[in-house]
């Protein structure tokens, strides 16, 4: 039996322009999706409870039968969404914050659920003002992390083109999952924020590996790339496998935070495979064969 081998790619067959085309097209598409989202909804992604404010109840069925129906009639406000958690016999009911009447919402809903014989397993209440605060903090934190990473990368390589290649592919790794979230109908939650920050950390690994192999080691360019690729692809695929499995298990059991982190990291790492071995390789090749001479 032979081990799985990372496929060898013959980069000589493609020009830099061809290599860059695919990742740039995907990036442009992603930016377009996010821009469109922003123009239509006023936010770059579908915002979850933590960013809009509202109440989320986790309701368990205690008497049996027709829970969904009873949920719909139990509350005097129409729930914005009802989600069932298969493994747990629990329903997650979400109410967006009403700007006109935020007072005592959670308490009212709790007593209404009790009156309808539904036992409340968990209540989360987020006020709109706190939610907008969270949104601001998130953007600030993401910007700060990205900036810190960029500065560090420039300090590590001290040459413009290879450094900007890492930063550009990290940027694309962040933008693509956000666009994918919009298309898949996943809401922006704090778990997603954590995942995005982790993408900044994770995705740079394979880029650093590639740059290191090409710039700091002796050996021919294509040999260096294929060596870095063998290691890098193994790393990324391992992580994708872990994240996909975690996302699936967490979805079945209704652990929202882990599911969000798993899905977004898996998408981000897939994007990273493309960006590292197309965009980054092309930029490095241009730098190595043409950029240095100038």
């Amino acid at each position, binding site marked *: 039996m032979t081990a799985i081998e990372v496929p060898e790619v013959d980069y000589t067959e493609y020009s830099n322009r061809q290599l860059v085309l695919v990742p740039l097209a995907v990036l442009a598409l992603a930016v377009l999706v996010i821009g469109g989202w922003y123009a239509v909804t006023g936010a770059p992604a579908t915002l979850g409870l933590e960013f809009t404010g509202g109440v989320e109840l986790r309701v368990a069925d205690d008497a049996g039968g027709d829970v969904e129906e009873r949920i719909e009639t139990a509350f005097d406000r129409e729930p914005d969404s009802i989600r069932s958690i298969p493994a747990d016999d629990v329903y997650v009911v979400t109410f967006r914050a009403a700007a006109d009447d935020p007072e005592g919402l959670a308490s009212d809903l709790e007593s209404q659920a009790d009156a309808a014989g539904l036992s409340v397993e968990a209540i989360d209440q987020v006020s709109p003002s706190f939610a907008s605060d969270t949104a601001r903090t998130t953007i600030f934190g993401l910007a700060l992390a*990205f900036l*810190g*990473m960029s500065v560090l*990368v420039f300090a590590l390589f001290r040459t413009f083109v290879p450094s900007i290649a890492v930063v550009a592919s990290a940027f694309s790794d962040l933008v693509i999952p956000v666009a994918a979230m919009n298309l898949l109908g996943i809401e922006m939650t704090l778990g997603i924020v954590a995942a995005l920050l982790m993408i*900044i950390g994770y995705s740079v690994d394979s880029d650093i590996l590639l740059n290191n192999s090409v710039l700091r080691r002796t050996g021919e360019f294509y040999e260096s790339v294929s060596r870095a690729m063998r290691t890098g692809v193994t790393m990324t695929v391992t992580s994708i496998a872990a994240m996909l499995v975690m996302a699936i298990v967490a979805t079945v059991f209704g652990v929202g*935070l882990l599911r969000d*982190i798993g899905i977004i990291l898996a998408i981000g790492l897939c994007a990273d495979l493309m960006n590292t071995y197309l965009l980054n390789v092309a930029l490095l090749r241009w730098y190595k064969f043409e950029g240095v001479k100038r």
Partner: protein
Amino acid sequence: MFEPIKENWRVLLLVVVVLGATVALFAPQFAPETAPGESAENATQGITNLQYGLDLAGGTRIRAPLLGYTATGVDFAGETPTQVASDVAAELEGVSTREVDAVRDDEGTGSDGAGAVEVTDTSVSESEFRAAMDASGYAYDTIRSGVTQETRDAAVEVIQGKINEAGLSGGSVQQVQSITGEYFILVEVPGQGRQDVIDLLEERGTVEIAIAYPDADASDGTARTDGILAQDDFENIGTASRREAGSGAYVPVSVVNEAPEGQRSPAVQFQDAVVEYGVASASGGARCNYDLETNSLGESSDSCLLLVVDGEVVNAFGMDDGLARSMASGGWADSGNFRLTTTSFADAQTISINLRAGALPAELDISGQGTSSTISATQGENFRLYSAIAGVFAVFAVAGVVFLRYREPKVALPMIVTALAEVYALLGFAALVGYPLELAVIAGFIAVVGTGVDDLVIIADEVMSEGEVNSRTVFDSRFRRAFWVIGAAAATTIVAMSPLMVLSLGDLSGFAIFTILGVLIGVLITRPAYGDILRRLLTVR
């Protein structure tokens, strides 16, 4: 005999760390501290010393601001804080002095400095307060929403007192600041439902002032008259303040000095009672020596004023000579102000809290700007199980890919074991410092396995590239090359995660802390150890 130790010190270090983690996880010496009145079994959850946060154990977290407005940089123009507060309150329709507070900045450093004035009556709008400040004639810098630091501290003390009194182990209260500079009070109570916690926060006790006086007929020589002052008779209960000159602290208190026609005001009644029972006389004030244990006056004690909260005497006071003379002459009731003085600031804080009898100094806005989250105990325990399952499956996925890729147990098996040792060391650390495990922390563990294995792949590939590893020197130089990449990757992860550690974004700081810790343990301990293991396996044949 030291040669093997020197050669394998990295592996030995890992073994020591794992043993240390085992001790921290299972040794009873490291078990969580028990709350008063709680047995050790109750404090320990499960067989390990690990503690679980709200979302894995059940409980309620409430985060809400204290309502009010504060004028900062107020020029007191030589007046006392009490005077300033009552002047501002006079300009606000229907607001009692109790809802207005004035605090000097840098208490204790002189009487000329600027200060802050706050209003905690929720019916007062910002513009009304601004108008009142303008009308009162005190110059000020700005008006912001929120209350003063002193009031926040007092609120935290009150809530902490309530949590302790209710015997809720693991309950905590703290102040947190958002990125916009607003302050919030964060209350966490494990094992309690949302409504229970809100009820606890809003619950109020009764407070009254009684007088104990010597009585030769009583067996312990003490007689007591209750109800000298009741809760509603206080017009204002200040926050604890440091004395302007000398040491010591005090709580300013004013008693209502107005009454309908034909009735005596509470201040007058208090004044009369104090003189009648001998706390104050024309010659001076009483020297109080009250024994709180036996509830009786001590040897040669004069009469005492008693502070009674929920039927229990919590403090006893004598009276200052100057105050006593003005009481005896009947002039005191015109102002109705006095100070309860103590030797230490902490005592003054306790008294201020006792006088409030559990009422918060400002309203906690839970339903409006607050955020709360509650998880039932069963749901929490389920989450604990589910997240463990998700974690185990993620590790299996990693192991599967690694085995498929290398097909060599010699390389892959140590890889998985090393990555797991990393998580185990982190669990030990969590148990050691008593950091409560939350879902976010579990996600951090899974992230650590991911980055850990990534780095081990880098080491393995680098070491095994370019043919056989036949000498130690070859191995070492390759290992060092691999380590540059690992160090750089670790540094970027730490940089990317550090904002989360300090920003207040829900539970995510736990996630960031454990990811960063995991990366550090990985780079410093487990990955060098893996290198050593791999070297033995590859070079010795």
